[in-house]
């Protein structure tokens, strides 16, 4: 089931925003070249918030150990030892509101 | 300009051996040069070993992260030496003054060279020569400075002998562990 997250206007170009969802781990929403990306607000390396990181050249940068994740594929670059790739949730912008499929398997966009 | 004369570039091809006669002559040149430097025969060194078009460069070594694209040194940044012939000559003039106090009393020098590789280049008159060195200075009672490093030289064949046309000197120290450099490399 798609879950309503927030108005899409709250996600500015080049920014990452954290959204708390009742009963589920918090998610992060990023906007890059207009498109929206939704992923767990938790770096797969050390569980730090990715919303406290930033976007750079089409990648999410974790602000703690500087792992870089491709927005296209989730592939990790510059990984700390043992850091897996990032997974994304299916999402869409329905009339100005962001929805994402947070249950079931995460799916890379 | 040939790449090997570009002071900012390392030697590209270190697999072009020279004939045995050339090898022997350049080895003799290298050993004679350091013998002159050991003896502080700086004016003769300048006159007999150094090409008038010399570029003599010794950058200082920065400590940087491996992913820093600037690397440990770059031409145009700060350096210990970045000299033409006339600038080397200024340094030699100082040594020639009796009031060059850092050399009076006399400093005891030893230049050791090793790891010598002599290579031909695209120009038949030019040779690319790599060597490693240990530069030892001792003066007064117990003041000792030892500097290790590498040199990348270009020698030019002239008048049946050789002249130093380009020298890049890379030492292994970041903070120079000496109060001065009253020596050549």
């Amino acid at each position, binding site marked *: 089931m798609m879950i309503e997250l927030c108005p899409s206007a709250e996600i500015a170009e080049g920014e990452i925003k954290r959204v708390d969802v009742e009963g589920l781990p918090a998610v992060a929403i990023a906007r890059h070249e207009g498109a929206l990306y939704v992923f767990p607000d938790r770096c797969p390396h*050390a*569980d*730090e918030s990715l919303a*406290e990181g930033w976007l750079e050249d089409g990648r999410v*940068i974790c*602000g*703690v*150990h*500087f792992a870089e994740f491709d927005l296209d594929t989730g592939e990790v670059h510059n990984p*700390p030892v043992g850091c897996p790739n990032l997974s994304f949730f299916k999402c869409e912008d329905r009339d100005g509101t962001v929805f994402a499929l947070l249950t079931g398997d995460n799916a890379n966009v | 300009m040939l790449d090997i004369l570009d002071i900012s570039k390392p030697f590209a091809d270190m697999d072009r051996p020279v004939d045995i006669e050339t090898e022997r002559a350049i080895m003799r040149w290298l050993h004679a040069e350091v013998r002159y430097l050991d003896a502080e025969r700086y004016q003769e060194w300048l006159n007999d070993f150094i090409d008038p078009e010399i570029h003599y460069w010794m950058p*200082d070594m*920065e*400590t*940087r*992260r491996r992913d*820093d694209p*600037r690397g440990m040194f770059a031409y*145009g*940044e*700060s*350096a*210990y*030496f*970045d*000299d033409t012939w006339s*600038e080397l000559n*200024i*340094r030699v*003039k*100082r040594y020639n*003054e*009796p*009031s*060059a*106090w*850092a050399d009076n009393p006399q400093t005891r020098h030893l230049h050791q060279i090793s790891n010598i590789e002599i290579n031909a280049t695209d120009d038949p008159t030019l040779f690319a020569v790599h060597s490693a060195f240990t530069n030892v200075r001792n003066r007064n009672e117990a*003041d000792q400075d030892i500097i290790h490093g590498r040199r990348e030289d270009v020698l030019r064949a002239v008048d049946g002998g050789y002249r130093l046309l380009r020298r890049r000197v890379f030492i292994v120290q*970041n*903070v*120079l*562990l*000496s*109060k*001065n*450099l*009253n020596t050549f490399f």
Partner: protein
Amino acid sequence: MCEGDCKGAAKGRPNMKPVYPKAGSYPDFAKLVDRENAQVDRRVFTDEQVYQAELRQIFARSWLFLAHESQIPNPGDFVRTSMGEDDVIVVRQRDGSVNAFLNSCPHRGNRVCMVDAGKKARGFICNYHGWSFGIDGALRGTDGKVYEKDETFEKAQIGLTPVAQVDSYKGLIFGTFDPDAVSLLEFFGDFTYYLDIMLDNDEGGTEFIGGAIKSEIDCNWKFPAENFVGDILHAFWTHQSGAQAILGGGVDLGKRYDELAFQASIYGHGIETNLDKVGNTRTLGYPDLVDYAFELSEKAKDRLGELRARAIGAVSSCTVFPNFSFLPGQNTFRVWHPRGPGKIELVVWTLVNKNAPDHIKEQYRKGVMMTFSPGGVFEMDDGENWEYSTRVNQGFVTRQQPLHYALGIESADMERDLPGHIHKGSLNDANQRLFYTRWAEFMEHDNWTDLQNGATAAPKKTATAAE
């Protein structure tokens, strides 16, 4: 443990607030400077206890030079340097300001930054346990998914210790570990009048070019600092060989020495100058630089007035108390970092006007290398003097002997309308006496009110002299 009110830390949790040491008072050490007899006791150069007192009284309180703005133009750009023996990182923040932090992880103390400098750093990660700090010094996270599960762990309470105050003056960034220190401008007093000779002689300001050259000299840090504060006398003897090599003659103070040359000192900062326009610049050995200095001197009259315009390239030297020095005209800027009573690490940069033509900047870079770097024909002969001035005092009897600092003891110039303590002639020990007087004030006083109102403060007459 925190008893509450510890930057918001919960009661009973570790108090990780930064600690800024309080100054004390060392009247016995202050007496090692004998103003009456113009003598300095040699123990100030060798004694370990005096040295430890210097770290506490002087280096933990004074505004110390950190970097030039031009070295770190963009957010995340940083340099690593020292304040006294304390390793610090100086980093440009996202809002354009500059902060500085102790380079030591609050976990086990390891350095978090190992390199000399870097560009656009995302932060600093300790190699030991992966503790990660933002460029703002805040702890961003750790490694191993361990601390996150420990509910008592208060990340927000932990960070790199900030240098208490950071400020800049016309491109030069300074910092102090003392939260109670007077402002940078008050620390300088009217000495900014003289700093502007180099820092404000051209529109567009200044920059450092190239990197830094670092070297070790086995001497007490005060010998080079006092040398630059006002010892042009040594140039004639020490640097005879260098002057011969470059100029083909001796050091020349200009024809109008008696009329023009002077020393000025405020709060221990001092400059000596001969106002001969290009004497220092000439020693770099490039005629183009001499032309540039002459032109600059003419042009700068509007900004600085006639007197200071003559000083830009003149035979001169300057120390900002305690350990930051430069040579106008030769454009070498340097810090003498203490490394124990008998060792320094010298760091040297070249300063140029941003608007100077490229070939002029290049000649300054090469000229400084040829004269005032470890292989330079002038600096070459300084080190051994300072090393043996320091080392001979290992002799028990030797270090009981007085040292003579009395040249020009009656040379105070009460007429000249310039800021600070003015003495006639640059060949004078006056600035060195005032440098050590300032040193004694720091040893004696545990508060800034006394520090700013002692004998080294500018005499009242100068209140209006700086215009």
